């Protein structure tokens, strides 16, 4: 099946348990030059890259989904198996496979490795995480393991790249493995008969036929495509073989596991020695972190600390950025002199883009901390703590990763629900993911908090918004489960990886990438929108009419500064943007918002963070350009209503933030939901319920606050 053309067409598959360091290894091997796509027709991501050997030869490498066992029926593990057998439409059977084995978790990893030996594809083993094994007090003899298994075994540390040269060489020396264990005679005979039947079908690669026969003997179910392809003869063969097992009192379901683990235990005993200096730090940490009482307390403390630090550390940098933007504005004004272009530059571009760039430090810091937490293993414990709650509201355990991803952006989160087997579980998760506070909401929170929340409470308020979004998501799930998507929970097991020091390179790279995307977005889409917005807020021009009225007001006794402020606001009110805002006012007034926020709400449908740019522009336009820079925060605080009273305060800020927590403003999210559910019904439902929730939520907060005297 190998084409005669370049060696680059040869395919290496990388397989292994989840958490075995497979991805780090793959990244190191391919040097991060890889693409992410979809396995044709199926919704599990496919990652393919290229590796280079010492002599320059290249080879394609595909990273298979993490797999605990080839006998599994979970969607992603099935993909791994189908890929290894060459049954996927766009992937031929790999020429070689690199199996990653976690040395600190040997028995379970060898379970998978021994299954791989039986598949028959030339194989090489990367014995990863030997550093972790050593820390646990275990020394694994790679040479001995190689003798036991019959294929090359190379000890490596994927995180640091240790011994990778040897690994690359050994890939070329990959060898075929074989079954290393024997069953009782009756079982061997039953297997043999089935093997013959499978051979007769002829659609599996010859080398893998026996392994698959064994798998089907133990685990096949009526609806398996395997049985469908083989037809009645195959079914009959399976039934017969199973009958033989039963007659011999052999438990077919446990057959493979019992023998395979017995084999692995034996191997481990022979290749691993205890150095006696076990490190029980992970266990000790866990005793505290997952403690019934201390656990949640620690969780809250850590989260609180993170959010508070984000504010304290980001503060000075933000001030710096602000001064720089202000200074820049003054220079531009001086250089270009008065005119429409200058106005556009200073009150449009700088106000809009500058308004949002200022939040770059906060975004970077927040994701730095979260990245560290995730990398060191803590977040898995968080999932553990939260699981019961999730199940209590009707969310499946697997919803944790989609919902976690939604803290960055709901869209990949929604796509991640494909890993959930039950249709209703998927639907509920998809409908609830947009409630999780995505990263686009962060600048909005940040602005409102910086403007209206007193210093000591800033971190706490930010945290509260995130907590609110989680509570809202859980609550919505609960309600949905009881009404529109009635259902029940499903099973869930999760491995808790041992604690480790975060991989700083990876962490910093993530933060840099995040920040990079943010800045890029600001410099392109937001810049363009700011320009358009400036025009909408400046035209149609009403300068003469407003100046005339201002004169009248002063003649009637109004103060000069007040009138100047009013004039600035009035000019915008009469522009296109202003008219739009005013049209919305009746609907949003009960929430404490005025027409300026109204304009922002409309523009935030382009992207939530555009609200910040919009506020920046709306509060700049109409000002004299050479007035010197005033921070947007201050402008918001000083903003006045037509009757002269303050337009906004802390209560309005919270009301607005609550609105953003609950509202569905991302059209792209709705588009993805439509694509994933194949109907318009659910995205429309999502939009309606979230908008209603947002309005009601804001209403309660604002009116409630007024009633309690906070206005």
């Amino acid at each position: 099946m190998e084409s005669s053309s370049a060696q680059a067409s040869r395919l290496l598959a990388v397989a292994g348990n989840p958490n075995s360091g497979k991805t780090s290894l793959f990244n190191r091997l391919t040097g991060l030059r890889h693409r992410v796509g979809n396995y044709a027709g199926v919704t599990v991501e496919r990652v393919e890259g290229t590796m280079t050997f010492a002599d320059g030869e290249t080879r394609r490498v595909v990273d298979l989904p993490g797999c605990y066992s080839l006998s599994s029926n979970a969607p992603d593990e099935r993909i791994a198996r189908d890929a290894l057998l060459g049954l996927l439409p766009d992937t031929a059977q790999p020429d070689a496979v690199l199996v990653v084995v976690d040395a600190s978790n040997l028995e379970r990893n060898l379970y998978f490795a021994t299954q791989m030996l039986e598949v028959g594809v030339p194989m090489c083993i990367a014995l990863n995480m030997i550093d972790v094994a050593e820390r646990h007090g275990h020394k694994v003899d790679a040479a001995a393991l190689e003798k036991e298994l019959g294929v090359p075994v190379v000890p490596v540390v994927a995180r640091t790249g240790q011994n990778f040269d040897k690994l690359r060489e050994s890939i070329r020396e990959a060898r075929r493995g074989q079954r290393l264990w024997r069953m009782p005679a009756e079982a061997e005979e039953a297997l043999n008969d089935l093997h013959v039947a499978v051979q007769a079908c002829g659609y599996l690669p010859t080398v893998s036929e026996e392994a698959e026969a064994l798998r089907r003997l133990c685990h096949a179910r009526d609806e398996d495509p395997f049985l469908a392809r083989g037809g009645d003869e195959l079914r009959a063969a399976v039934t017969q073989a199973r009958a033989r097992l039963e007659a011999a009192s052999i438990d077919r379901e446990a057959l493979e596991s019992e023998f395979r683990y017995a084999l692995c235990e034996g191997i481990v005993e022979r290749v691993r020695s205890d150095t006696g200096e076990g490190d029980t730090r992970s266990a000790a940490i866990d005793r505290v972190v997952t403690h019934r009482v201390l656990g949640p307390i620690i969780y809250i403390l850590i989260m609180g600390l993170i959010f508070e630090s984000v504010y304290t550390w980001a503060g000075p940098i933000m001030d710096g950025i602000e001064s720089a933007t202000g200074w820049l504005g003054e220079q531009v004004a001086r250089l270009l002199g008065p005119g429409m272009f200058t106005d556009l530059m200073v009150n449009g571009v700088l106000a809009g883009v500058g308004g949002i760039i200022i939040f770059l430090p906060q975004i970077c810091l927040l994701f730095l901390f979260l990245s560290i937490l995730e990398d060191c293993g803590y977040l898995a414990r968080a999932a553990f703590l939260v699981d019961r709650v999730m199940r209590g509201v009707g969310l499946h355990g697997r919803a944790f990763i989609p919902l976690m991803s939604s803290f960055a952006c709901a869209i990949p989160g929604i796509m991640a629900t494909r890993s959930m087997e039950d249709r209703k579980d998927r639907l509920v998760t998809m409908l609830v993911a947009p409630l999780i506070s995505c990263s686009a909401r962060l600048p909005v929170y940040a602005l409102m908090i910086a403007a209206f929340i007193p210093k000591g409470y800033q971190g706490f308020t930010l945290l509260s918004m995130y907590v609110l979004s989680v509570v809202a998501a859980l609550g919505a799930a609960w309600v949905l489960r009881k009404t529109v998507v009635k259902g029940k929970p499903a099973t869930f097991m999760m491995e808790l990886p041992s604690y480790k020091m975060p991989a700083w390179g990876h962490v910093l790279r993530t933060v840099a990438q995040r920040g990079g995307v943010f800045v890029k977005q600001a410099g392109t889409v937001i810049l363009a929108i700011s320009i358009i917005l400036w025009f909408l807020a400046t035209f149609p021009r009403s300068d003469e009419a407003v100046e005339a009225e201002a004169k009248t007001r002063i003649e009637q006794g109004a103060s000069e500064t007040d009138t100047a402020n009013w004039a600035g606001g009035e000019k915008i009110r009469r522009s296109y943007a202003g008219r739009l805002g005013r049209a919305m006012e009746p609907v949003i007034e009960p929430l404490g918002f005025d027409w300026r926020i109204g304009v922002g709400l409309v523009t935030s449908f382009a992207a939530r963070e555009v609200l910040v740019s919009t506020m920046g522009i709306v509060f700049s336009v109409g000002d004299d350009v050479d007035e010197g820079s005033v921070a947007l925060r201050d402008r918001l605080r000083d903003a006045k209503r037509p009757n002269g009273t303050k337009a906004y305060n802390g209560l309005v800020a919270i009301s607005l933030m609550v609105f953003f927590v609950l509202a569905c403003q991302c059209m792209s999210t709705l588009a993805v939901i439509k694509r994933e559910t194949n109907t318009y019904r659910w995205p429309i439902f999502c939009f309606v319920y979230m908008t209603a929730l947002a309005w009601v939520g804001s209403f309660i907060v604002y009116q409630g606050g007024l009633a309690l005297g906070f206005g």
Partner: protein
Amino acid sequence: MQDLAAITMLAFAVTYIGWRYLRKRASGNCCGESECPAAREMVDRIKRGSRT
């Protein structure tokens, strides 16, 4: 002169937004890029992450 410059910028801005929108529809990603960075991150997380 100033007015001309401003109008030109507006034209660019509108064209750019239109182009991004078309790219978005073509690629299916909300940012119009060929690969969604958030999706990549999530894929990495799943592959690194713990689930059964």
